[in-house]
């Protein structure tokens, strides 16, 4: 394995972990809003920064061989949009499932 390949592999792993991390944060924001905790000004700033980060990663994610990243990015953007809208925008698929699960308990 050459240095270039190792770098590419490492970059891919970094991208994966970055996306997963950002996606978790977005999911956390959406869950908070859905749970009745609207974003405060600081939370809004963080959410906007998160949205910017996610959108910036779009081109790299589209180039990545793992399509899971596209799905994770999509879910994250829908979640952060939901949070910024105060819980009125459409739901991510995972948020929809979470709400379904809560309602069915």
């Amino acid at each position: 394995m050459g240095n270039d390949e190792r770098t590419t592999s490492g970059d891919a792993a970094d991208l994966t972990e970055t996306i997963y991390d950002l996606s978790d944060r977005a999911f956390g924001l959406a869950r908070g809003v859905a749970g009745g905790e609207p974003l405060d000004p600081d939370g809004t700033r963080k959410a906007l920064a998160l949205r910017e980060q996610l959108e910036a990663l779009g081109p790299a994610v589209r180039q990545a061989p793992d399509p899971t990243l596209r799905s994770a990015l999509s879910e994250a953007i829908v979640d952060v949009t939901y949070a910024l809208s105060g819980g009125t925008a459409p739901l991510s698929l995972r948020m929809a499932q979470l709400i379904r699960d809560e309602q069915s308990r």
Partner: protein
Amino acid sequence: MTHRLVSTSAQWKTRPDIAPAARSCNRTAPSAAQTSYWPTRPAVQNRGSRVTARAGCKRVPIHENHDRDPSPAPDAGAARHRTQQDAFGPDASLLGRSPVALSAQLLRYLQRTAGNAGVADLLAARRPALAPRPAADRVGPVEGYSRTAPPATAMPAAAPLATASPTTRARSGDRPRSLSVTLPAQRHAPGDSPSIDKQAVAAELSGKAAPPRPGAAPAPAAAGPTPTPAGGGPGAAGGGPAPAAPVSDKAMDYASAEAAVSAAYGKVKKITPAPIKIVSKKELLEAYDNDCIKRGVKFTEADGTQRPWKKGDVSSNIEGFAMVDGSAIYVQKDTVLPTATAHELLHVNTAADFRKMVGEAINEGTTEHLAIKAVRAAGLPTAGSTGAKAYPQQVGAVGKLIKVVGEAALIEAYFNGAESLVRAYEAIMPHTFAELKGTGSLSVTHMAALLVPRTPTQKAAIVAGRLALAPFLRTTDVAIINAVLDSDPSDVGTIKGTVGPMVEFAMRMVAIGRPIDVVQALAASPVVDPDTLRPTVAPLVTKRAHGYLEGWVSDGDLDNIETLYNLRIADKDAMRAELRPRAKELWSIGQRARLRMIVSR
């Protein structure tokens, strides 16, 4: 038809000659409850024979209480039978109605449980004039369970249920009013459950060709990707990649996904339809924008200010979303993941606690694993043209989890509750499930060390530990045993060889003293070799079945006898020979018939 003998009718309460304890009609009621109200019967049973004025027929209590008769005569059953004959007359029949007026619904039930011959025998026993006609007079198969319809010209005029198809009856408005004792109705073969292809029926009604069933060989001229062989059904799927697997760069249509998922997991859970819309990227983004505009959603600018949503505000990175009211789930059609539709359908059908208890990685990995398995079993593509697969790391982690707890335990937990998975994992592994779940994110980097499969020796020790609990064994223990055995088929021989003697001990203990659901679970477990254990365990099962016929026999007792009779380790011939004669001991004609039906299969 169970008559509650604890009923408090005025007549019952005002009878001073009946001991109060007898009114509860339990097994421990004192024999003093017997009175002269009906000379040959305990008072409690006399009550059940009162005439039901509204129906104009005689009701038959179906409970029996031998405890009330401390010294029953050897021919007690026959005496009871004669008493009932005296009370109701020879024409008394099931449900107190004339046999020829049996409802089609009841008849179908009896047919399913006892077969046409059984129904005819029952009716003939009640009224000799209704004895079956000679075989030569019969139209269509009665005993042969043939699927072949009898010739239309040979159909008797007085057999509307058998001759008219359900759709014909529905259209004509005719209702089956009577049935001949000779029943030319079709019946599926024993053990072959009747299946209705809803799609085919719908297609027939609409005059269209039926779509191919999942797993069925495709029509030669069928368009679209060439499916691979079904691979031996769902159980064969989910293993290594099939050679020359078809690929697709589109999410499968909803109908195909639902058919595939239902075929694969319909026995574990009835698959609930989901309002999934498979649309193009453009349509998906438009739908998102339109929904936001329609509902007045605010868009937040980069500076934090908000304004009404307008077209084009949606991010082009979105590939799927759900309406807030649950009315629709949008999934992008031109995705590189053909399993996307099945994946989302599975999410809709997941147990409510699964995602929360197992975390995102196992939830998504399991969902995709099950989607791949279902789609592959249906002979449809599971990967895009680039070889792309969804959640590859998470699916890999779930594959390792299956090597620990077995696939059956995972599927059961996925659809019916995650607790069983957590319990199995923690019983088998020296870690908690919380450690495996980690932060609950999609990351799987911490899981490798927590999913190292146990060695065959360790597995045998786990199974032995559970079997040692035999006097107190629970179904959850059996589930753990099954999980261990299901984790790796190549280890089963080693495990069973190690714990063999303990299995017989456990099975004997359970057959004698554990609840019936535990008996059923252990007898069905792969750790039990029925052929080996039958000689020693079957007599205990038969003895236990006898026990349910002692004292007051409830419908639940007959349920238990049926469960025991159907155990893999039961000796059906012995049970039939010993239990069938005891049917006459039951005073209730319904229970007598049912017991005979149970042991006649």
